[in-house]
């Protein structure tokens, strides 16, 4: 058990970087004069905040894919649901400041000639209730979906396909105006969060710092889970599912726990994303988004947590740069990146780094003990 320390070197570096970002980026943005070369420009703060939210989604995805072997191609759905829950709170905060000035109904409902708030919008004027829903709605969906899928022993590519279908179905549903979530425009025009104006630089800096703390917190939680005995069982299930079953582990229960936890983390990530980008619409459910998240994890290094977050950051930074220079080529670049990673870096960027350092570290270790068993058997096989 000593081999699995709660925090390893990579984990401590990761936490230090994330916490340093939480402190330095808002400080630099708010305190330094705009002409200082250390000043982080205003537009960079929500952009970096968005990356951190994506890093959290990647972390959640790595928990199920990297450790439990469940390749979810629909994790964007949980992210978007968390985002919608936060968006509904932000809509209710607009109050009479909307275009139609209705104190209760959001603009799109007035536009659709609705006269009262649908029942599922009740309670979202309370921040605590919205926060609860941010976690509970994705969690409940993942629990029900996982209960049915894992109990029927749907695995591998079939499971990936139905997760993809799940997010696609939700996208189609949320596009409909009569669903009551703003149709294809989604929810936007947010005014304030907990009384602070969403657009204000101070609020954005605070949201950035919060996202960084949430990322650090989810990392600690995920790390605690994967280094626990449950984490070992989950890896055992990934590598030899039937062996785990015959040893007496109820595989479907373990998958369900990890899948639900992961969906909840994705929901929190979505909730932090929405106030920073200022909009949530059904395109967040697009299957391509979920697939992109899988690429972040693969690029960074599957089954490492740190790698997933790093991959999300790198790929999205690349995306921002690339779509600025050659917008039409981005999807080709993304596809090429995925192919190259699969072919050349099966363990991702983090795997590459540990391999580079590992060469030296390995030579310091004593050679593996000679095969000791069966002791009497002299000839090797």
């Amino acid at each position: 058990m000593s081999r699995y320390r709660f925090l390893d070197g990579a984990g401590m570096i990761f936490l230090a970087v994330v916490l340093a970002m939480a402190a330095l980026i808002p400080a630099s943005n708010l305190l330094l004069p705009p002409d200082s070369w250390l000043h982080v420009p205003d537009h960079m703060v929500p952009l970096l905040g968005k990356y951190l939210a994506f890093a959290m989604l990647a972390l959640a995805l790595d928990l199920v894919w990297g450790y439990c072997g469940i390749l979810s191609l629909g994790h964007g759905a949980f992210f978007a649901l968390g985002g919608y829950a936060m968006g509904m709170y932000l809509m209710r905060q607009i109050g009479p400041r909307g275009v139609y000035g209705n104190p209760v109904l959001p603009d799109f409902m007035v536009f659709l000639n609705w006269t009262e708030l649908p029942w599922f919008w009740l309670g979202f004027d309370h921040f605590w209730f919205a926060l609860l829903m941010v976690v509970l709605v994705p969690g409940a969906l993942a629990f029900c979906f996982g209960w049915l899928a894992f109990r029927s022993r749907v695995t591998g590519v079939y499971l990936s396909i139905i997760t993809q279908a799940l997010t696609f179905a939700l996208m189609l549903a949320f596009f409909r105006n009569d669903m009551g979530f703003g149709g294809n425009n989604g929810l936007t025009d947010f005014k304030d969060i907990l009384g602070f104006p969403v657009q204000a630089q101070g609020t954005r800096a605070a949201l950035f710092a919060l996202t960084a703390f949430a990322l650090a917190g989810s990392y600690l939680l995920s790390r605690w889970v994967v280094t626990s005995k449950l984490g070992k069982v989950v890896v055992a299930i990934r590598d030899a599912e039937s062996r785990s079953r015959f040893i007496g582990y109820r595989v479907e229960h373990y998958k369900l726990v990890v899948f639900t936890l992961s969906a909840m983390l994705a929901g929190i990530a979505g909730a932090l994303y929405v106030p920073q980008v200022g909009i949530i619409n059904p395109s967040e459910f697009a299957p391509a988004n979920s697939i992109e998240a899988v690429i972040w994890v693969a690029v960074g290094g599957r089954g490492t947590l740190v790698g997933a977050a790093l991959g999300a950051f790198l790929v999205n930074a690349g995306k921002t740069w690339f779509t600025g220079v050659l917008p039409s080529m981005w999807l080709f670049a993304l596809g090429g990146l995925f192919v190259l990673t699969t072919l050349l870096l099966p363990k991702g960027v983090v795997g590459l780094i540990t391999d580079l350092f590992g060469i030296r570290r390995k030579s310091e270790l004593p050679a593996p003990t000679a095969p000791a068993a069966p002791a009497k058997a002299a000839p090797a096989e």
Partner: protein
Amino acid sequence: MAIGGLTTNALLYLDNVSVTFDGFRALNALSLSIDAQEMRAIIGPNGAGKTTMMDVITGKTRPNQGVAVFEASHDLTKLDEASIAELGIGRKFQTPTVFEMHTVEDNILLALKTDRRPFPTLFSKRTKAEKERIDALLERVRLTGSRDRKAGELSHGQKQWLEIGMLLAQEPKLLLVDEPAAGMTDQETADTADLLREIAKTASVVVVEHDMVFVRDLGVKVTCLHEGSVLAEGSLDAVSTNERVVEVYLGR
């Protein structure tokens, strides 16, 4: 207690068990009884139903008809793999199946008989008793020196032994062992026979094996399966001189 109107004192009792896959009868009215602390060798040609029989006993396959009872009170045809494992039935696969990414020690740790539910597992801490138990088991399967190595790095024979160690960690009452000697050297085969005989002092062991030398080495009662039912049963000498057995399995 009786299930299906039968009373029995056997540890494992199969009666009239049939399994059909797409019209193919993998098991055909198979009846078998294993006593406590008995070791039994099961032989038979490919497709005789040996693996399907293990699947029925461990809950992987549901029989179309018949009775499978453990300890005269548990109906195995109604339980899932995890519950059957918890009753004390352990199973070793034909190809050694261990958790390759985990250390040898963790492989044993995961197999130790404890609460298997997710949340107790999440909060579980290894106790001193568990550590001692792991030490003893590693000693028994001669893997003490390899405890920190990844199981995937072990040799084939060591993996077979690790898997047996994992079965022992479950503290089973019945072990089902599928071709334990496959791919082993002669010496390893003899050692494995010793180990199984030792295990049989405290638990029942059912060994499926093709290697007749190994079966002779075990020196136990033999059951020969053919086309999903029992063809002959008795000492190896009696079975191997049985005309039908010679005809379908051993060859003339």
